[in-house]
Structure formats: C-alpha cells, structure tokens
C-alpha cells in the first residue's frame, strides 16, 4: 500500500472534516484528541495495518486498540475512509442504536478491536492480543494508541513493565502527546517529567516525532516495524497539537470534550478548505 505524503495529507484532511461534522451534529463528543491523533491514524491505517475492510473479523489481522476511546470520531473517520463503515454510518455518532457509539466499542462497530472508554486499559488488552499472536506463531501485531493524560493511570505502567518482561516485539504503542487532558494542560494536572526516559527505563524502544508531519510519521512507523525493534515492545512518542488543524481548538483545553457551535463549525469548514469563506 504505497501512498504519497500528499495523498496521506488529503485523507487526513477529509477525516478532519468528518470529525468536526460528527461532533457538531451530535453537539457532544471529543474533537481535541481526535484531531491530534488523526494524522497518525491515517498513516497507520493507509500504509501499515494488515486488515481487510470486507472481512473485519479476519482472525490474523493486525489489531488496533484506541485506548483513549473518547477520541472515537478520529477512529470512525479513518474506518470510513478505509471502507469498514460507510460515511452514512458516521451520522450515527452518539445516536441511539448507532454503530458509532460515544466511545469506540467492538460490539457495535466493524473494525474496532477494543471496547474503550475507561482510560488505562488498552495497553494491557494489547499485550493480550500480542501474547495470543505469539502463541499462535502469527506475524500479526498489536498497535495501541494512548493519550498523555491516560499515561497517569497506574495500570499503563503495569502493562509497560509486563510487556517488556515478556519481550513482546509485536506490541507497538503510539503516544498522542498533545499536552492537554480533560480539565486542563497536563502540566497543571499532573507533571510527567521525562516521558521518553520513563519508557526507556521500563525497557521499551523509544522514538519521538512530530505527529503532524506526515514524512516524520512514516519514519516513526518504519521505526516501529524495524526488525531491530521487534525484539521487545516499542513506543512512538508523537508530539501533537490538541485540536490540531482548527485554529480556535488548537491548544485549547475547552475543546477536549465540547462541540463547536454553528458559527465555529462554519469557520472550521473554511479552514479545512471545504467551503469558501
């Protein structure tokens, strides 16, 4: 699956449009963390994930675990781009009976591998998936996306320690380092000091990238897949901007979990090049 940087950027732009539409339509949801993760999800799904949209439960597929499950609009947008669900399905976000539940849910949505919503659970689940792949002697991998606020949960570190102990080279984490959590900036809520050093100390291969630079993201994904980094677990620390791509949402904690009003929605569509100013 080769795609040019420009093509990837265009997919990500379309996903951003869908993210904003979803939260605006629902007048609820989490745009900030969806926009910060979307370039990463785009590159991952469009160029790395071994999955089949027409066979979402294919047993030997790579797994993707959106541990920060509130950032579901980002995941739904890329699943629609990849053909797991339709663009029409995106209208069911937060609607009764819809496949696009408020938080990603494996019982409701094709292509979703983990029922998230409670932070700090996905990495342990990913370790389970990676362990199963190892026992099965399968080449499949488990990719886990976690948030930086999420990293404050103790269970993340239980999993981090265990995955390194078991040398799970097929377990790969992407950290969305957007520096904001629910109430405020991370540095106000809970300082995390030297994050790369922490993961290194836990026995992980670590690389830092700009999570909005498509070329750097591709290098980062190469790093995760490099044979020398498949002897143990690896993490890509992606520096991102919460709300990235929509000026008034960028670095704005209040758009962690709030929808744009009609005027803001229009402005977002202008900024994304969907409509004329």
């Amino acid at each position, binding site marked *: 699956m080769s795609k040019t940087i420009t093509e990837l950027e265009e997919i990500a732009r379309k996903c951003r449009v869908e993210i904003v539409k979803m939260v605006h339509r629902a007048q609820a949801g989490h745009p900030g963390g969806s926009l910060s993760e979307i370039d990463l999800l785009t590159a991952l799904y469009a160029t790395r994930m071994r999955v089949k949209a027409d066979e979402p439960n294919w047993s030997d597929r790579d797994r993707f675990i959106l541990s920060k499950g509130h950032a579901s609009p980002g995941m739904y947008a890329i699943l629609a781009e990849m053909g797991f669900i339709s663009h029409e399905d995106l209208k069911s976000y937060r609607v*009764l009976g*819809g496949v696009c539940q408020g938080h990603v*849910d494996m019982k409701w949505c094709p292509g979703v591998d983990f029922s998230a*919503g409670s932070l700090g659970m996905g990495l342990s689940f990913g370790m389970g998936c990676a362990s199963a792949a190892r026992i099965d002697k399968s080449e499949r991998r488990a990719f886990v996306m976690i948030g930086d606020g999420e990293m*404050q949960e103790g269970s993340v570190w239980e999993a981090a320690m265990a995955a390194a102990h078991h040398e799970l080279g097929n377990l790969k984490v992407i950290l969305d380092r957007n520096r904001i959590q629910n*109430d405020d900036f991370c540095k106000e809520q*809970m300082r995390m000091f030297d994050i790369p050093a922490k993961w290194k100390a836990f026995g992980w291969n670590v690389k830092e990238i700009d999570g909005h630079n498509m070329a750097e993201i591709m290098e980062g994904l190469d790093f995760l897949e490099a044979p020398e980094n498949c002897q143990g677990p690896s993490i890509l620390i992606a520096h991102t901007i919460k709300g990235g791509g929509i000026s008034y949402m960028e670095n704005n904690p209040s758009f962690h979990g709030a929808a744009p009003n009609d005027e803001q929605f229009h402005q977002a569509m202008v900024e994304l090049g969907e409509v004329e100013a």
Partner: protein
Amino acid sequence: MTRMAATRDGYGQALLDLADNEKVVVLEADLGKSTKSLHFRKAYPDRTISCGIGEQNMLLVGAGLAASGYIPFASTFAIFTERAFEQMRNGVARPNLAVHLCGSHGGTHTGTDGSSAQSIEDLAVFRTLPNVVVMHPCDDVSTRALTMQLPGLGKPSYMRTARNKTPVLYDGREDEIQIGKGVVLREGYDVAIISCGVLVSESLKAAEALAEEGINATVVDMHTLKPIDGELIDSLVAQCGALVTAEDHNVIGGLGSAVAEYIVSNSFAPLEMVGVPDRFGESGQADEMLEVMGISAPYIANAAKEAISRK
C-alpha cells in the same frame, strides 16, 4: 415552571459552603469540571489535591488524609470510582476512615457517552462494604443538604450524582433532608413507590398517571440506600400493602435489592422492582435511555399495578 438542575451542581455548591471547615480537603482525578469540585479548586487551591487520571491513588491519598485528621472529598465519574473499589474496600472502609467519595454521571441517564460511562452497578458494589453509607439524591438541593452533613458522619460514604438536569423538588425544603431518612413526597394508600436519583421525578409522574386511573400512590425519595430506612418501609408496607422500587441502576443489587432484603425479614408485601434489566447501556439521549431501559414513568406505573394485583 419547575426549576431544573443537576445534582452534581448541588455537590459543587456544598463543597464551597463547607470550606469554612478548614479540615475539608478536595481530591480530583482530572474530572473536576464534570463533578463540579472545580469551584472549590479555584477558590481553595491549597486544599485541593490533583491526583491526575489516577483514581486508585486518589482513594488512598484520601485515606491517608482522613487518618491525619482531614475530611477528604474525592470525586470522579461514578464508573471510575469502581476502578478504585478495592482501595475503597481495604484502604478506606476496613479501617473506617471517613473519606467521602462522590461518583457523578451515574446511570444510563448520563446519555450519549455510552455504556462505558454509564455506571449501573456503583450503588450495588459500594452497598456491600461495611461502614460505608450510600446515597443517591434526586435534586441539587438535597444533594447539597446531604453533602453538608457528611463532615459530621464520622465514617466513609459514597454518593452518586447525575450529569443531567432533573426537576428540583426541595426548593426551600432542605431541612427535611437527613442522611438515612427517606422522604415521603406524596401520600397514597394503594401502593408505595420507593425511588432514588433521577427516577424520583419519574415516579412522581407515574403517581400522577395512576391517580387519573383512581390509584393513589405514595412516592418516597429514598436518597440513602444504606443504611436503609427500615422504619419508613415498615410504615409503607402497613399503609399500602404493595411496593415498587425505581432506580437508574441494575435491578440487581441496588435500591430494589436493599428494600427486598429488608422486607423479607421484616414486614412483608409484594414488591416490583423497576431498574436496568441486567444489561449494559448504549449511546442515547437521557430521556431515550430511560425508555430503552424500561425505567421511565409508564413502566413505573405498570409495575405499580402489577404490585397491587399481587396483594
């Protein structure tokens, strides 16, 4: 027009009102904007401890503070209090340390966040812990009144509040609220509807609908599930001879169970339990969820008729 308000706002107001007591401290786990402890944090940053997104840590920090003479109020979503259940059990309840835990956004009524956020078992699990008082008030006034009484309680507590607005029932009547004492909101002699939280106003609606059919229902706000007000239940059994419980919680283990546990070994009457039918929720608007779960006013009214028919 009935005033509408959310119980979590009553909690936030009470923390501010309690601040004069300099032993009161507030613990947060990155949800202060939602549980409404943020007002206290803004006014009293020195007495607010952010625990980041770490509920297990928060509960035991609370225990340490309580053991050092402080009165800690910790809050997060009801669902995430459950993550710290064993901390609450072994670190708080067992040594009987007066940590006051508040779980907001409880029940399916919390809405479109979906099943991961809709706690339907919090009341049940905390009810099983010795020493722990369990409450689920129905409006902001009673939530504030109950919270104001907690510093005098001397033991741990769990209180569930709700995300969304419901009708205010106690404006000017906060003196009637007392931990452990249910409140009779409406008198009737055919059936007693015992309810808590967001279903109290639904129960009042059900009673009105029943009245049109000539059935007179008592409606009780049982804001304290533990200790349950047995004296009141005895009198309801004597007066009505048929009971209904209504709660936005799994029908297993919550208010219905508390009432059933009481009546099987005391004065007995037929009981119908309205609650979430042992299933997980899903994304939907608050009022839609009450319909989907079968716990809105019409379901309560039907259960009342069923209970009466079993007299």
